């Protein structure tokens, strides 16, 4: 019923994110257990109407929330390659094929270019249902190319993180994506083009310890879990209970690691405001037309 209704409304995300927002007419809140209809949930920016819990959503949902019209997807032609021939309980190649089929996504990150209140923006958003939002070579390459694209066209970049961290099945290749993405982002800084990092629930591991913490502005959704080590690992290490509110966006804000927390209903306006604010520098930091002469190596 739910999917059918949304299909009629032309929402593209219906089946793409079924794992994160299971099908059905009713939604029961994970946090306060209150129920509402799926439609109410969606109309409330995928937040619980009773307690404001921000339900985990996918890349397409964020594109829909942010962009004025259907964005253009970039670098969708890149696919993971199992160069290690990695096999655990099942072969990585099978895991990939199955995940791609189930999610209708091609990787844990999707890059799209569009307009936010008429201003151009490149958004790279992650999907937790694609192998835990894990970072492998494709994620690194898509971010690397997104940076090149932003440099060439002088468009700001927003990365929306949602990840368990590294993709183990790509071992050191995965690890090197931390260095690769961080190194590429220095080029944005040098060119004076803003890079915004939005951390959503959860953002951990190598993603946090690289590009997610490197925004000119770092911000998060309310109550998002953000950290380097996962809470379970920390608990096992220190052998005691974790303090209340540990690793939440609110505690990171308090400890000085976030610029602000943004409610999902205000996200578009906030991003739009930032684009306007950064534009007034008049240095072409944002929203400038394509510069013809720039055929530099990028």
């Amino acid at each position, binding site marked *: 019923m739910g999917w059918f209704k949304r299909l009629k409304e032309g929402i*593209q995300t219906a089946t793409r994110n079924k794992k994160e927002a299971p099908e059905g007419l009713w939604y029961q809140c994970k946090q306060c257990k209150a129920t509402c209809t799926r439609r109410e949930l969606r109309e409330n920016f995928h937040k619980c109407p009773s307690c404001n819990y921000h339900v985990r959503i996918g890349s397409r949902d964020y594109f829909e929330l942010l962009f004025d019209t259907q964005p253009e*997807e970039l670098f*969708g*032609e*890149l*696919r*993971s*390659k199992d*160069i*290690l021939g*990695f096999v*655990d*309980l099942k072969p990585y190649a099978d895991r990939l094929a199955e995940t791609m089929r189930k999610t*209708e996504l091609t990787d844990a990150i999707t890059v799209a270019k569009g307009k936010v209140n008429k201003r151009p923006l490149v958004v790279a958003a992650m999907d937790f249902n694609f192998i835990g939002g894990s970072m492998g*070579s*494709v994620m*690194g*390459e898509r971010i*690397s190319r997104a940076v090149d694209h932003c440099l060439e066209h002088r468009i700001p970049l927003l990365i929306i993180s949602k990840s368990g961290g*590294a993709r*183990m099945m*790509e*071992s*050191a*290749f*995965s*690890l*090197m*994506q*931390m*260095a*690769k993405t*961080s*190194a*590429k*982002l*220095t*080029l944005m800084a040098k060119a004076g083009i803003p890079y915004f990092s939005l951390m959503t629930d959860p953002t951990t591991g*190598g993603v*946090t*310890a*690289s*590009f*997610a*913490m*490197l925004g000119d502005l770092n911000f998060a959704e309310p109550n998002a879990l*953000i*950290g*380097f*080590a996962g809470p379970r*690992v*920390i608990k096992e*290490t*220190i052998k005691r209970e*974790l*303090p209340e509110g*540990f690793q939440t966006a609110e505690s990171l804000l308090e*400890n*000085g*690691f976030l610029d602000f927390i943004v409610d999902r209903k205000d996200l578009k306006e906030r991003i739009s405001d930032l684009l306007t604010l950064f534009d007034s520098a008049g240095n072409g930091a944002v929203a400038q037309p394509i510069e013809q002469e720039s055929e530099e190596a990028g």
Partner: protein
Amino acid sequence: MVFLDFEKPLEMLHDQLERLRQVGEEGDLDMTEQIKELENRIRSKRKEIYANLNGWQKVQLSRHPERPYTLFYINQMCKKFVELHGDRCIKDDKAIVGGLASLDGQTVVILGHQKGVNTKMRQYRNFGMANPEGYRKALRLMKLAERFGFPVITLIDTPGAYPGVEAEERGQAEAIARNLFEMAQLRVPIVSVIIGEGASGGAIGIGLGDRVYMLEYTWYSVISPESCSSILWHSWDYKEQAAEALRLTSDHMQHFGLIDGVIKEPIGGAHTAPEEMARLLKRQIKKALAELADMTPEARIEARIRKYEQMGTYEVVEPEEPKTRKRR
């Protein structure tokens, strides 16, 4: 002497050798011939074992309790080492050490993870697991090097960044990320060497360099074989399989082009001939620094970023997105 499980045959031969020596001394007999023969057998047995090490065995070697650590190498390779402490912010991390030193007359900033040499020191060094202040101390020293034009040498040997409450509260992820960002643009040469364990973000947090080498019996991976086993196999018992699957040893890393070279270890591992190991390490570092000295800072930074940009393995397929859309 500490023998690893796969060195059992060696341990037996060593025991025989000991007994032979004792018998010789007690009975006042000339055992020279027999001792010599046994020593030869030990040598060839060691060669045989070390020619066929698997991934997990190399991981064990990288953690050998007698393995040389950062301070040993610094003192062997350099003169006038002045250790510099603290991140100027919160405290001095004991799991990362560093300072100024003279490498055959060239002043360098040299730093690395430091593990303890005995039970008490292992605690003191937090088993080589740094907190954010360790990464921030490392960055402070690298910026010092940049200010005065000193090359940076980093030695990596960590089971991971410390997963603790305070580490998280003080921004472990931010500290590592900041180092990656700053190291990518550092104007002086950076040479990094994995001398033991290269576990994940904790390792790469001081490991982004113009040249990155691994000692032969070390590993570099996004996760330890034990943790990988626990997560993907749901059990701690598959560490050997995980070590193979992760392709984490120096030979694989070189094959994949993720490092710039492997520094051979003495047969039996670095701990069997530490001075020799330090000599080989120093030779490679000096060679790399000589190559890098000829480049301008701009060219070095450009090459460094392009090197990391190339790291990744993926396929490019024909876009089939429109088809998917139509189906709905």
